[in-house]
């Protein structure tokens, strides 16, 4: 039934594991650093207070003196949301454009499967890195800190990553060159993240509303333990619209 997803996902196994190991190691390093920072005499919170608001918001730095605040700022806001978002956009960009450019897709589309199906199954194969990374990270973090509560609802982050993957997929169906789609995906997600960060607290704060990262605030969830259900729902809808639009476009374009 899902031949293409299985075929594609198999090719993602190694990269996903390597990425999970690297991120895990980085998470452990951050957690290992925490006691030294917590016990340091310098008033780090005062330092953070003195930073511009957009900077604080962008990197989610609210407080470094609790493990939740520290982990939220160092790990989740930057590494997880931004890095994984970039990774998913990059992977999404590589889904189709490269195969179209090289002609690899011809051999698949010559079989009795529809274009939409091939494209969608390829998109589904991104589920492997999304699931593996989102399951392994909390486990590593939890294993590294006995003190921390269950950190973040993975379903929440999932939708942000789906949007980023969708952006990649959309670019991949529009652009003809694989590397162009991947780079455009990286650039777009990073720009959206910046747009979200720098507009916070300014008159044009609404501009940042186009960024998926605006709707995910690990600091809020970790530190204040509040979860809002409207935002993830909204993001899911955006992801679905982007994916459907991409599939529709891909169905009719010349290859």
């Amino acid at each position, binding site marked *: 039934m899902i*031949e*293409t997803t299985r*075929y594609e996902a*198999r*090719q993602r196994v190694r990269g996903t594991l390597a990425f999970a190991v690297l991120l895990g190691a980085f998470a452990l390093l951050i957690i290992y650093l925490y006691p030294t920072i917590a016990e340091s005499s310098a008033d780090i919170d005062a330092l953070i207070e003195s930073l511009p608001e957009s900077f604080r918001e962008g990197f989610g730095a609210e407080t470094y003196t609790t493990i939740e605040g520290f982990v939220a700022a160092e790990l989740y806001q930057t590494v997880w949301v931004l890095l994984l978002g970039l990774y998913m956009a990059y992977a999404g960009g590589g889904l189709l454009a490269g195969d179209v450019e*090289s*002609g*690899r897709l*011809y*051999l*698949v*589309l*010559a*079989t*009795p*499967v*529809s*274009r939409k199906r091939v494209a969608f199954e390829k998109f589904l194969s991104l589920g492997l890195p999304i699931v593996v990374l989102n399951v392994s990270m909390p486990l590593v973090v939890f294993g590294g800190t006995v003190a921390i509560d269950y950190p973040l609802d993975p379903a929440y982050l999932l939708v942000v990553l789906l949007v980023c993957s969708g952006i990649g997929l959309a670019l991949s169906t529009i652009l003809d060159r694989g590397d162009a789609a991947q780079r455009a995906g990286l650039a777009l997600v990073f720009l959206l993240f910046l747009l979200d960060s720098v507009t916070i607290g300014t008159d044009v704060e609404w501009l940042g509303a186009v960024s998926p990262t605006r709707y995910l605030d690990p600091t809020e969830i970790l530190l204040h333990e509040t979860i809002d259900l409207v935002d993830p729902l909204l993001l899911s809808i955006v992801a679905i619209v982007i994916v459907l639009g991409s599939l529709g476009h891909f*169905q*009719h374009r*010349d*290859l």
Partner: protein
Amino acid sequence: MAVIEVEGLTKAYGDTLANEDLDFSIEAGEIFGYLGPNGAGKSTTIRQLMGFQTPTAGTARIFGNDVRNDRALRGAKARIGFLPGEPAFTPSVTGREFLDYQAELKGDERRDELLGLFTPPLDRRIREYSTGNKQMLAIVQAFMHDPDLLVMDEPTSGLDPLKQEAFHDFLRGERDHGTTVFFSSHILGEVRRVCDRVGIIRDGRLITVEIVEELLARGGKQVRLHTETPLTEAALDIDGVVGFASEGREAQFTFTGDYDALFAALADYRIVDIEIDEPPIEEVFMHFYGGDAE
């Protein structure tokens, strides 16, 4: 009923007409060669037949299914084997993994039989494959679900001469079992040896569709001679010498006549070197269809 019917097929890329008002049909059980120089529009036709690109005007039908109708064409694809020009694969998978994937998509009743004839190194990653090995892998996938129709873009490119011959033999065998074959080539000799009929395309236009024997009579060979004493056109007074040119003791012409007559005429000369070769396709166009091949 014709297996492939092409009706007024036209494809424009901006101002360039890659295919212009093509009309031809291919009957069940024949090998149809689609001959033309590089850039003539052969691949464009094939991509439209496979539904990868939409015609600007006109259309084509495969097994009666309009190629513009994705759903209808998809049904027909189970009966089509396809071999693209310069086939490309995911470099990180092995040949076997690729064939397993293709088998899941369309079946592989004949895989083992084909792997007896064409021998890509299945357990190596495709990134290590030579051009010839990639071509063999592509040939295996094209035939492995035992299709009724083969659509192939330059199928022998990259194969060594022995494998080319094996492929031609195999193709004739398939035809004798009722399989229909449509393939493009820019090599006249290949089309001559294998095809029943040939369509010749140049600058996106179909110049002629001929039975191969007729083309054979017109095609000719390119002859290059190095004689001890200079050879003149007047001395070579036999039928079938076209485009004679000489420079000192080197002479060159296209020959469409009888070999015995040629060798009888040359008997008075001491021949240092002789080359008889397929003419480049551009030559054929120049001599038999007028105008220059560019």
